[in-house]
């Protein structure tokens, strides 16, 4: 096969950080779209929420960290989420359900399985 000028995208990785209006929260939405050996598209979604008490403080470690491996779940909502990002219902679910679960895991009041369920709920919230 002769050399060609064609390009094939292996993966696209996007992270967008958005600061809240009051400057006290910053969230990072990450989307990884990659192709595996069998040319099947694989998506992963990441969500991090950072908080600080004052605008003069630095953001420290994420208070909420969500990883969704979309490949493992073949739901329509996941494909839509991977293509279009979180809608408002999913954003709400992240800020309440996932943040609560993350806090409870940290406090030893919940298991990581419960946090994973809350993350799964974010995808399901697309229909809410």
């Amino acid at each position, binding site marked *: 096969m002769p*050399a060609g000028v*064609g390009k094939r*995208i292996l993966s696209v990785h996007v*992270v*967008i950080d958005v600061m809240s209006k009051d400057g006290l929260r910053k969230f990072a939405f990450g989307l990884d779209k990659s192709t595996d*050996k069998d040319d099947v598209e694989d998506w992963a979604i990441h969500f991090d929420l950072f908080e600080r008490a004052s605008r003069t403080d630095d*953001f420290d470690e994420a208070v909420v960290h969500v990883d969704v491996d979309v490949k493992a779940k073949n739901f329509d909502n996941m494909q839509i989420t991977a293509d279009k990002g979180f809608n408002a219902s*999913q954003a*709400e679910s992240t*800020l309440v359900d996932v943040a609560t679960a993350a806090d409870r895991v940290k406090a030893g009041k919940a298991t990581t399985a419960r946090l994973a369920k809350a993350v799964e709920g974010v995808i399901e919230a697309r229909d809410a």
Partner: protein
Amino acid sequence: MQATAERQVVGGGGCELAPGAYESQGYAVRRVEVRGTFDWFQLMPSTAARAAGIDLPVEGEPFRVDRAVAAAKALESRLHAPFLGSESLVDVTVVVSVIENCSDLDGRKLLDIHYRTFTSLLTHARGLTIESRDAQRTDPAEAAGTLAPARRVKLAPMAAYNASDNFLAGGTVTVRNVADRIDAIDAQAVASNRSHLFRLAMAGSSTPHLKWLDTGDWRISVADQKEAGSPGDQFSTTAFKGQFAAQTRPFGGASALFRFGGSLEGGNQEASVTSNGTPVDDRTGYGALRAAAGVATGGNRYSAAASYAVLLGHVPGDSVVSYSKQIADFVWESQIPVADHIALQLEARVNAGWLLGSNTAPVAEFFRGGNREESFLEGESWIIRANPFIRSVPSNQLDRTSPETSLGGDRFAAMNVTLSAPVWRYPLIPLWLSRSESFKSGIDAAKQTGKSQAVVYYQSKDPAQKLMAADAARVTTVLDTLFDGLTAAQGTVDAAHKDALDDCLDAADTARDKMTHLKDTGFGPIATSVVPGVASGCVAELAAALPPQTLTAHLQELATLGASIAGTQKQVRTDVAEAKADEDLKFAFSAMDTFINDINAVAVGPVLSFDAARIGPQTADQAGGTRYGIGLGVRVSIVNVLHLTALYAWNPSPLPWESRGAWMMTLNVSDLLR
């Protein structure tokens, strides 16, 4: 899951097979390249430098899909990390990994792996002001605030020509990140055989910790400037100046922002001119207070600004305010797309000025026009044009108020229109990338998520939230009571219901915790998450086993309260929240789109101009009244390298003391050391 062979191939043939096929067929890596979209024409690509330590595929080794993708992910993390410390409204990091040049020649199976990156910081007002749009075009890497400068020292040569000053050459040496609050120290030297500018400046900027303020900057400078005018005329200023300027965040439905600033300066001014055949040599010390205010507004494809500035000047031996100047400046700029990465750029400007106290003002302060722009404030962040700009007249040679009197005027008005478009261009972000579905949907997903977060925030501030506050408070009380009751019941419930009770207790406790996370969302999730969570965690069988006042009554009350909140939630104006979110983010997103879809790495095209200007007072238009200029030129722009504009403007009705037209040229080199 879906097979994506077709949509992942971009830019034609060459690597048509699935990536795994190249791996299984034993292809080896011929070349690995890491390049940022802003790395054009750099001595040392900054993105590649940032990739140090990342486990990139190795040239000569077998190609492995997983390793190539993992390296892209690691690169993304590396590039994204510094953004956590930024105060920008939005920032974005994109890494795309690509294979290309797949070849099988004489059994040698080789391919290239390229990593393309795009990073950008976007403030609230990025893309709204004309100055920020210009910065995007002329130095996108700097405007994007992408990466920390690879070098502390920046060297930006420049050259210019106009018939008054002759060829000017020089540049600016900038030392960046000098100290915590000092962004840069600039040493600028530009000179010709007739004029010069030597300036030393120290500047800083910050994002103030005030909700309504976007940016603020300050600047202290000392400068010695000499300008030429009509043959033999010279104007000099030596001054020490302290300046500040700030701009608010966009406000209002029209997406406007307010700018304000001022400076205090003192020094000497000198004018050596000949008027009415008499040499005039005016030298004086002076002090001046400058103040300026303005409004800027814009949309996706246009920007507009109105500025008003006043100068109060003092000369020794006169009153505190010996003279004053006022400047009004209105500017409009449009970008009209006509083809891919080709936009017709239209800039229209009207400005006017008045000098009061001309009998005591230094002659150097009089208004003179020509093909060199003067700005009321120093720096590039806010341009208020302070002189009549007319490209058919050499700098400072529009100076007559009568055929004999050439001291300059005490008033002026000018209008300028400039039209330009690239006819040949090479996009900053390659078309194969900006048009690929994966890249576009990744950007869209990120933008939509950003908007959704803002929508949720504004929903939480909707007036209807107050209507739910009492119900929400009651929910908290009921949950506390429920939790206490269930805790007490742990000692009495039979073994068969113990697990159910534990689940119910956990659900109630989780619900209580959720109630503490509602400040950013409003009370809506009580109906959609809190109450349903308790209901699903507390099964009917358990309710039957416990006294009604321990569980059933509380579940019923929670259901009632949830239904009430769900009903009131319908009053929350989602449309208003979405509009506000759009308002907040549209300029940041628009700026991102501009980087991706509009900006060219190389562009060449014509420039057309029309100018009209007059100075006064002129009795019966003795000095020709309004003077005109019609120009044609060329603009060459090479990102990170140079920006050249050369233009000749005709004077359609030259008077005896005027030339038939004038050449002008400006050449700015971005940074020789980049």
